[in-house]
Structure formats: structure tokens, C-alpha cells
């Protein structure tokens, strides 16, 4: 009985424990620059965009699929949102609603529809739309950054609010919603069911196509919001932003204990997974590790973090 409860604790808090251990290690290595309150806020802020992307990716992976297009979607929606404000003179909130929220959801909807219609594995479909959305971004922007958004926008989506970065607030609100959806709603539980055994889910009356469509729409939605946050944070919508961000988002989800085969994982742990990634790169910066050695260390720490998790949770 003891063993059982340790296992369930580790399942809940294992990722957090790893985060704390890593933080401790860096704090010892670079006490002056790393282990400060300001830097802690910095780590969270820098992880905010990956958190947003990871939330969406989590849904895709939960079904045993994947979404490779989220980086491109973020760039695309960021660009649209910015253009709506800068060239269309639109109110920031309306622009975010149309460009980021609706735009992102639409991109995801397209992914989901294509997957359902063609029956092709999400990897290939979203690899294709990754190219497509990036190309569309480059085309509408002519590869130029768009800037000059209203202060209201950059402040509300990328600024500080009583010293708390808005990017973090938004990421946490989105994460909270995702956590609610996956753990409290029938819809969310259906996703775990589908991830565990899709055929059985179908025979039990779950409309798997509708659910998959919804999942990719959510994934696109999160990426869309991330696009707006990125644009606000940078003060400009960059056409080449978030290239390769999907890999980081996937890594965050997996570090957070999400199973690649689907049906297993929890939003809070995914958030901590994103924090671990942010922690690693911040920590290595703060220790003044030379650039190439940072890559080396990132790879090793990534493996170490997930192996540690696996080792502890297998032990009991």
C-alpha cells in the first residue's frame, strides 16, 4: 500500500521534484546570478510561450498523435493579429480575438479536417501544414516584421501587471482551462479513452472524428494565443518566429510525463516540463557556459531529466 501511494505521489509531483532538483544544482553553480527572485520570474516568463504551445501539443499527443504545425501557426496568427492592428487599425482586443483566437482555431480546424478526411497520420499532415502556414506568413508579410502595434496590445499581452508578466498570466490561465477540460469534463476524459484504445472508444460511442477535430482546433487555438503573446513580447510580429518550437513543445509535454502512445499525461506536469526547459537554458546562460557547450549540456540534461523520472517511477 505504501509503494502504491509513493507511485501516485510521484506521478503527480515527480516532474516538480525534478524541476526543484535542477534548480538546486544551478543555484549551487551560479548563486549570484541564477538564484535570485528576479531570475526566477525571468525563467517563468521565458517559458510562457512554450507553455502555451505545450498545452496545445499535449492535446494532440494525448490522442497518440502529434502536431508539428504549432510553431508556424503561432507565427501566422501573430502576423495576422499584428497586421489587423497596424494596417487595419483594428482594436487590439478584436484583433486578438479574430487573428489569434479565431485564426489559430481555424488553422487547427484545418489540420483536424485534413487528418479526418485523408486518414493520414497527423505527423505528415501537420508537417505539410507547417510548411503551408509558414509560407503564408512569409507571403502576407513579404518576410518583413510587422511592428507599431498599439501600446495597449503590447502592454496587455506582453507587458507587466503589478510586476507580474502578462505572458505568464495568460499562459497560466490557458493552462488552467486546459487542465479543467482534460480532468473535469467528459470531453477531456474521452480524450484519454481515445488515446488508450481508439477502436474501443469508437465502439463505445465516442465520436472519434469530432473529438480529433476538436483536439486539433484546441491545439491551433493555443498556438494562436501564443502567436499574439510572442508578438506582444517582441513588440513585433516576426515571420520566422517559433521555427522549431514544436520540438520544444513536444519535449515539454514528454518531460511532463505525457505518453507518446497516448492516453497518459497531465496538464500541470506539462507546464512544469516547459519550466524545466526554460530552466535549463537560463541556467546554462547564467553559468556562462560557452554556446557550443550549452547545446551539449542541454541534450544531456534533457536525457537526464526524463531518465530520472522514469527510473524513480519504475522503481516502485
Amino acid at each position, binding site marked *: 500500500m505504501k509503494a502504491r501511494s509513493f507511485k501516485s505521489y510521484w506521478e503527480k509531483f515527480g516532474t516538480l521534484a525534478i524541476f526543484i532538483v535542477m534548480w538546486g544544482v544551478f543555484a549551487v553553480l551560479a548563486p549570484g*546570478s541564477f538564484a*535570485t527572485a528576479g531570475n526566477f520570474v525571468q525563467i517563468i516568463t521565458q517559458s510562457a510561450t512554450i507553455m502555451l504551445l505545450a498545452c496545445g501539443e499535449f492535446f494532440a499527443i494525448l490522442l497518440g498523435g502529434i502536431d508539428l504545425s504549432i510553431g508556424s501557426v503561432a507565427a501566422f496568427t501573430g502576423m495576422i493579429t499584428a497586421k489587423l492592428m497596424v494596417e487595419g487599425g483594428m482594436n487590439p482586443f478584436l484583433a486578438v480575438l479574430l487573428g489569434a483566437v479565431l485564426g489559430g482555431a481555424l488553422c487547427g480546424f484545418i489540420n483536424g479536417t485534413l487528418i479526418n478526411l485523408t486518414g493520414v497520420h497527423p505527423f505528415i499532415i501537420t508537417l505539410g501544414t507547417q510548411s503551408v502556414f509558414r509560407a503564408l506568413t512569409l507571403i502576407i508579410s513579404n518576410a518583413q516584421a510587422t511592428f507599431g502595434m498599439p501600446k495597449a496590445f503590447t502592454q496587455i499581452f506582453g507587458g507587466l501587471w503589478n510586476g507580474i508578466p502578462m505572458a505568464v498570466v495568460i499562459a497560466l490561465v490557458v493552462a488552467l482551462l486546459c487542465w479543467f477540460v482534460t480532468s473535469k469534463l467528459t470531453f477531456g476524459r474521452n480524450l484519454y479513452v481515445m488515446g488508450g484504445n481508439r477502436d474501443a472508444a469508437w465502439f463505445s460511442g465516442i465520436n472519434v472524428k469530432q473529438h480529433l477535430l476538436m483536439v486539433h482546433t484546441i491545439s491551433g487555438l493555443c498556438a494562436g494565443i501564443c502567436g499574439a503573446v510572442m508578438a506582444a513580447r517582441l*513588440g513585433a510580429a*516576426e*515571420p*520566422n*518566429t517559433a521555427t522549431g518550437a514544436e520540438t520544444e513543445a513536444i519535449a515539454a509535454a514528454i518531460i511532463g510525463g505525457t505518453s507518446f502512445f497516448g492516453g497518459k499525461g497531465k496538464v500541470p506536469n506539462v507546464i512544469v516540463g516547459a519550466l524545466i526547459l526554460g530552466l535549463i537554458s537560463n541556467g546554462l546562460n547564467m553559468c556562462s557556459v560557452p554556446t557550443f557547450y550549452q547545446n551539449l549540456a542541454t541534450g544531456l540534461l534533457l536525457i537526464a531529466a526524463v531518465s530520472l523520472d522514469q527510473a524513480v517511477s519504475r522503481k516502485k
Partner: protein
Amino acid sequence: GSGGGQTTETTEPAATEEAAEETTETTETTETADAAAEAESTGDTYTIGVLFKTLSSPYWQLMQSGLEEQVAQLDNVTIEIFGAESEEDLTGQLNLMENMITSGKYDALCVAPITPTNLISGVVMANEANIPVVNIDEKFDMDALAEAGGYVVGYATSDNVAVGEMAAQEIMNQFPDGAGVCIVEGIAGATSGELRRDGCRDALEAAEGYTVLDVQPGDWDRQTALDVATNMINKYGDELDAIFTANDTMAKGVLQAMINTGREDIFLVSTDADTEVQEAIAAGQLIAVVQDPGGIAFSCVEQAVAALESGNYGSVDEQPEDVLIPATVYTQDNISELMGTE
């Protein structure tokens, strides 16, 4: 600055040893936070943080080595050089800059943003922390910067449009009666590559008798450039007289394509020249418009030191003057000058 740097202990021998070890290992001049604090108090040595686009490409490598060489001759300046993982890692670079500011180690920053806008919020953060910022190579979009309330105290570059124009001029010199030209640009959307491309294309199109047959992306990659150039050569055949590439890595791929297809008669103009390209130039296989990255970066460091010494850290209202470090055309005849300096 905030964060670190408040500690005023004297430097312990162990720490210096560690620092020395790191230096030899990484060929970077490093400094501990303690030492920086000490420097601040005495007021005559400066630690400057330098942030490149990336360190894993020849151009930035040249800039690094050139800069380190020249800074070594100054005795009151130490530098630490960083770069993003790749030239596509926009937010990664911003995170790095924020971390450099938060660490409190640096008296001034010299940064080369990957795009004209991706580091703007970093500059604003540095301004708020009262750290002067100098702009290297890739120019910030000054309107966007001013709008965000940020400012830099200095800027040095070589003019990318001018680089493209110089290449076009060389092509026109070589083929006074007109020519068909292909351009291999960088990765889609990369600014410096686009400016070079535009400079070259516009200059050629403005002149009588010159046609730009094709512009294709070589993704800054040697193999992609090899494939793209081979396709160009096969497609245009004799129409194709000259190729301009937006950097030296791709030039090497194009050169290989020319050799493979037996079209060594094509007049190839590269931007920049790493050692491998220099040898090829010496062999008469191509020419190159070479920028002086080390000079650019060093000028930036000098501007940063000047700012620190004068105490004028700039403001939103003043725009720094562009310091243009000229690019030079190197051919078989004068390449020995460049190779001597290596």
C-alpha cells in the same frame, strides 16, 4: 544593474583559476561577477557582453576571432561572446539577452539581432537597467525601437545592399555587354540575405542588357546550394553567365555544382570568404565581396567603451550615426592580403 554584482568580496584565487581554465578551454575572455563588481568600483575596466546571431557559422566565427584579437590589445576591456543556437532561434536570442541583463555581469551590451525587431524588448529592458547597448551588423528597425521606447548608443555594419551592388558591379565589369545572372539567396525571410539579393538584383535590373534569370533559396546550406545551382545550370544552360550567392557557405556549394557540371566558366561572386573560399579565390575559381566582421564588432565595442566613459548612454531622441565598415572585393590578384591576416 540589478541582480548580481552587489557582492564586493575580493576575488579569490580559486575563482581566478577557474576563470583562467574556462578561458583556455573556450577561447573566450571570461570574468566572474565578483571581478566585474570590482571593475565597476575602480571604474577603469569594463566587462562587455556581446551577443551575436549565432556562433555556429563562419561569418560569426570570423567576427568572434577578429573581435577577440583586437580586444586583446585593450587592457581595460573584457568581453564575453554568446550566440543563439541558430539563426532561426529568434526568441532564444531574446531570452539570452534578457539573461545577460539579469545576470548583472555586464557594463554594456553589443548585440546583433537576428531580425531588425526580435531584440527590441531586450534593448528596452537594458535601457531600464541603465546598460548601454550598441547595435552590431543587423540594424534594428529604428522606428520600431523608438516606438517601444528603446535606444542604442552606437551602430556599425557593412551595408548589405551595398554588398549586393558591389557584386552586381563586378558582374557588369566582367560582362560589359550584358549577362544572365542567377542569385542564390539565404533562407526564406532572412534579412541580410534579402538585402544582398535586392542590392544585386536591383542594380542588375537597372542596367541595360542584364537579366536576373532566377532567384532561389539556398537556405545558407552548402548542400542545398549545390542542388539548387545544379538545377539552375541544367535549366538555363548557356544563358547563365554569372551567379551571386549571399554567403560563402553557399558559394562553396555552387562552386561544387559548377565543377560537377563542367561549367567552371560561370562567373561566381560570393559574399564573404572563409579560408576555404579564400583558397578558391587564390585559385581563380571565384571572387568575393568580403565584409570585415571583426572590424564591425570591434567598432561596436569601442563605441560601447566610449559610452561608458562619457556616461552618455543615449536616449530615444538621438539616433546614433551608422559606422559603415567598408567591404572589399577580393579576386585572385589581391586575395593574398586577406590570407596574410588569417
